[in-house]
């Protein structure tokens, strides 16, 4: 079982790296999806480990939330690209002002 958890950990870390290192907003969003998948995997693994169905139910809910998140995230990317002309996170610099 801990092998699955290690897999979840690895996916989560790789996804976090992607969010932090990549400048393409879309790739950042995809990396977030990878992280979410890692979290769902952990939920399912724990559900299996402790013989409870709760983890799986939470996994289903998490997938549903992820779907909504993708929709809004992509809409934001589209709006941003329309505004700045490129999906570059470095162009997101208004916080400095």
């Amino acid at each position: 079982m801990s092998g699955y958890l290690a897999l979840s950990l690895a996916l989560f870390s790789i996804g976090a790296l992607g969010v932090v290192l990549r400048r393409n907003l879309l790739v950042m969003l995809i990396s977030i999806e990878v992280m979410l998948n890692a979290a769902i995997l952990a939920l399912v693994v724990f559900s299996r480990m402790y013989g409870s169905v709760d983890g799986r139910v939470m996994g289903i809910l998490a997938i549903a939330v992820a779907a909504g998140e993708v929709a809004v995230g992509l809409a934001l990317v589209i709006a941003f690209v329309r505004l700045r002309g490129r999906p570059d996170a470095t162009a997101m610099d208004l916080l400095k002002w």
Partner: protein
Amino acid sequence: MIVLEGSIPAALTSLLSVVAGLGAIAGALVVVTAPRAFRAVMGLLITVVCLSIEYVLLAAPVIAFIQILVYAGAVVVLFLFVVMLLDLDGSRAESSSRGPVRWEWAIGGTAAFFMIGVCGIYYLAKLPAPAAPAVSEATPDGVQAIGVTLLRDYLVSFEAVAVFLLAAAVAAIYVAHAHGRGEKADPAEPDPAPEAGAAGAAAGKEAP
């Protein structure tokens, strides 16, 4: 009801699980390193499919199906649509002069990666073994159990997610909608009705 354990040799199961795990990691690495958004989406697809295999091996086929349906079927396609819609890999790709990865941060990121890794492995090693043997073999993944739990214990969450999805849909449409442009374009278009009427009249004259 799919009961894999028992019907397939245990060695094969664990081999499959290792292969699928490596595939998932490879897909994730593709996501992070792919120079083009299209490849990143493909990497995500690989990860998603591999994970669904893992779910089946974890005796959670319902999650596996939902994973395929929602992620492979909806999310990845949505990403692909956006990649094509915005033409991200064509004229507006990440500026090549600076590369896809911010190398100046890569050191920090990698440090964080290893820190998380080390800590995670430590905790994994410490993890207490499950007292009881997992889910009962008879109902490795009771769909009924999931349904009952979802609609009884998690009813509020379930409803909240429903409302959230609706809100997200509305928000996505609103945010992605090109404000002002559509309205501006409409009045500029010439009203076709008079011309059509005139043409019809002309046709009527010509007809006899």
